[in-house]
């Protein structure tokens, strides 16, 4: 007997289906719920139109300080009682901020979800926000940011963001602010942000076994006592590319790796090229067998991993390659990376590569969407970007039908190797001279 020598073919595929979606509108807000029969846990996510973009200049981080202040007690109970009540349901609050939204999430066993949502709403709608507590949370957040910024990455991210979006106000600063801007946040900033944006109804996303959940009760828990109309949306920022490449050095003395963040601007999420752009980035730097990971990790051994991707929000997008490479090979790694980006931009991709990318992206819609938490996240994409209920079935079909011509065209139009900003966070004494190969090196002030 011996091993089977020939690779088996595929069996018959079951048709793809996203969970059925139900809606309940009450108390001025809407519950959007995905039915997942048999799930023991259920997830809920209160989605408010109160992202970081609504913060005031110079006070970046206000929304994050507010998010972290929500559990410092409510009008009904102090922080210790609140923690005990929520955690005794097996739930923990996960408040968070992104560019487009303010989110408050909870997960719990299905029968306990309504109580968990009541407590989440109590914190989001009627937090105590005692001035002393808010000031302390703000100070703690400054310290937490300093801790975070001592890791490789956040400073490079901030330098890239400042260079790409510096002319666009809030978008040129880090999502959660920086230690200086958070230190400038006042108690009044936090109270005003809450008053202006968190008392509006928003949307409650729910995923779980809906046969055991009372959506009307969830709507009441989430929306009772709220007021305000949906907010008007502003248009995209547009894609502005610089005339030539720039290199920025973020010094990190004695660093044994250089952290690379190479990027340029790209269209926002609503772009009609979303699918071919995603597939182009998958071929270039998304899949394990991508051009970048193959060359930089598997052939050269310069890194533990390298990724290229587009990030897209309502108003902007950006292309980025991110990696940590051994200090001694910083310049060769950048050179090879630029080579692969240039090749993809100029020559496009092959059918063999696209076959992997389209099947992987399509398959991930099943493989990575098994849990209530993942489905609640998928629902949030529909809401934030105004997409229809059958979107994921459409997306899956579009991935599978994309052609080499479409994806190569997207690569040509949405990659721009000569317009990249190259941010390198590493040991300046060791790498500064060799970075000159890529043009004038500017020292980051971050």
């Amino acid at each position, binding site marked *: 007997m011996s*091993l*089977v*020598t020939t*690779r088996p073919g*595929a*069996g018959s*595929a*079951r048709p793809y289906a996203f969970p059925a979606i139900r809606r309940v509108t009450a108390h001025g807000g809407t519950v959007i719920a995905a039915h*997942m029969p*048999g799930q*023991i*846990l259920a997830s809920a996510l209160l989605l408010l139109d109160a992202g970081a973009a609504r913060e005031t200049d110079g006070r970046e981080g206000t929304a994050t300080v507010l998010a972290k202040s929500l*559990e410092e007690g409510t009008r009904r109970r102090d*922080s*210790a009682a609140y*923690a*005990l*009540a929520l*955690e*005794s*349901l*097996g739930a923990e609050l996960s408040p968070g901020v992104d560019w487009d939204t303010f989110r408050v999430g909870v*997960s719990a*066993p299905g029968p*306990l979800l309504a*109580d968990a949502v*009541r407590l989440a709403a109590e914190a989001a709608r009627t937090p105590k926000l005692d001035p002393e507590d808010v000031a*302390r949370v703000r*100070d*703690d957040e400054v*310290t*937490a940011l300093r*801790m975070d910024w*001592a*890791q*490789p990455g956040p400073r490079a991210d901030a330098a890239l963001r400042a260079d790409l979006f510096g002319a666009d106000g809030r978008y040129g600063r880090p999502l959660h602010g920086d230690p200086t801007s958070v230190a400038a946040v006042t108690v009044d900033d936090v109270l005003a942000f809450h008053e202006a944006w968190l008392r509006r109804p928003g949307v409650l996303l729910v995923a779980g076994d809906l046969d055991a959940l009372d959506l009307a009760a969830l709507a009441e828990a989430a929306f009772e006592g709220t007021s305000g109309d949906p907010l008007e949306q502003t248009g995209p920022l547009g894609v502005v590319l610089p005339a030539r490449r720039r290199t920025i050095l973020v010094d990190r003395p*004695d660093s*044994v*790796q250089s952290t690379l963040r190479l990027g340029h601007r790209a269209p926002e999420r609503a772009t009609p090229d979303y699918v071919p752009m995603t597939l182009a980035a998958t071929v270039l730097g998304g*899949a*394990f*067998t991508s051009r970048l990971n*193959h060359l930089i990790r598997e*052939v*050269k*051994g*310069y*890194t*533990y991993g390298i990724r290229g991707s587009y990030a897209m929000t309502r108003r902007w997008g950006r292309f980025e390659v991110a990696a*940590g490479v*051994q200090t001694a090979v910083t310049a060769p790694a950048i050179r090879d990376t630029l080579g692969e980006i240039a090749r993809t931009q100029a020559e496009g991709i092959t059918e063999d590569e696209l076959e*992997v990318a389209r*099947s*992987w992206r399509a*398959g991930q819609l*099943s*493989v*990575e969407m*098994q*849990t209530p938490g993942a489905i609640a996240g998928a629902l949030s994409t529909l809401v934030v970007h105004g997409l229809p209920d059958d979107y994921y079935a459409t997306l899956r079909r579009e991935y599978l039908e994309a052609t080499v011509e479409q994806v190569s065209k997207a690569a040509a139009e949405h990659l721009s190797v000569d317009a990249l900003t190259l941010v390198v966070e590493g040991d300046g004494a060791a790498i500064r001279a060799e970075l000159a190969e890529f043009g004038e090196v500017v020292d980051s002030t971050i």
Partner: protein
Amino acid sequence: MTSPSAPVATTGYPWPIETTQLANGLRVVVSEDRTAPVVCVNLWYDVGSRHEPPGQTGFAHLFEHLMFEGSQHVKKTEHMKLVQGNGGSLNATTNPDRTNYFETMPSEHLELALWLEADRMGGLVPALTQETLDNQREVVKNERRQRYENVPYGDAWLRLLPLLYPEGHPYHHSTIGSMEDLNGAALDTFKAFHQQYYAPNNAVLTVVGDAAAAEVFALAEKYFGAIATVPDIPAAPDGTLPGPAEQAVRETVTAKVPAPRIYLSHRTYPFGTAGYDAVTVLATVLGNGRGSRLYQRLADGARIAQPDYIGAYGVDLAHAPAPLIITATAKDGVDLETLEAGLAEVVQSLIDEPVGEDELNRAKALLTTSWWRGVSTVYGRADLLGRYTTQFGDPATAADRLPKWLAVTAEDVTEAARHVLRPESRVTLTYVPGEPS
């Protein structure tokens, strides 16, 4: 609002489990669930860094990397391409106890996944080349730099292990290994490693999701049946220890870190024992969540610890008393002595101050959610069943863990605290900001 009470669960695994064993010793576990059109294929090999002899630290993990670089009928780069190119997610991990490999696929590709796993179980050695070894050695060295050397406090785990476990103990060294040993890794050693440990009788194949047991059993025979049994696989060095350490140990590290930090650690009981179940509840009472004693007393109460960086957790190792790790980072202006005294006082409170009903219910509710979250994916379930089959000989015993946690009493927690948390058995690792000497 209903008043919360201790959650009730009679089983932590309400899905079917079917098992068989091939003639070559491979144990096969199947748990059918047709909810989603996906299936997870998971292999546990009963080999980890605890098997590594001196001078070969990091080899089990470096070997794990080699398993993705092609085998007898799978060309270099093809493994990843075939899994992702058919819609799947995949990974592998190595820890002191074992090495696991897993892929979640759209279920029509079940057979492909089984073929890939069988080919690298039975046919890796002919495909192993010096070039592959040299390349993956560099990748692993970069993994070490990225995860342990280039991040503040990143080497804490590497420092704790030799303080917790004596020289020669299978947990004394870390899984990532030393740069020196990695540099000395020779190709023949890896060929021998595969022939010794990557045997059907040293592995468990678990398939969870959109597949029937009978179908999986037949496919397992078809693809794995030809792989030969390896007789007399040597056991890892014995990890038995008489009990908690008898002398406190302390290490202070001056490094480029943004704030002073303390790790307290104790050896407890092996994962899977009643003692470790009590430690799991104890760690949750002590350091999991805003309602935990550490958070309430040091972050919220005395306000000497940073709220984002305080906690306690057990590391679920099964072949020797597993570590409990307790950590806190000083707030601005708070000195290490104050923080350490505060930490010690809260830890001591688990011995002196009985755990209240509310505290116990809170901990059990959090553990319940965490358990169900763990088994909410086919991957989570497959890995769980692979673990219980490998470590305890029966996948069905996985169902008992949650009920056993929920049966832990306040007295059990106090007794565990008395046994494992004594200051004279404590490892204290302290980071002080400054230039490394």
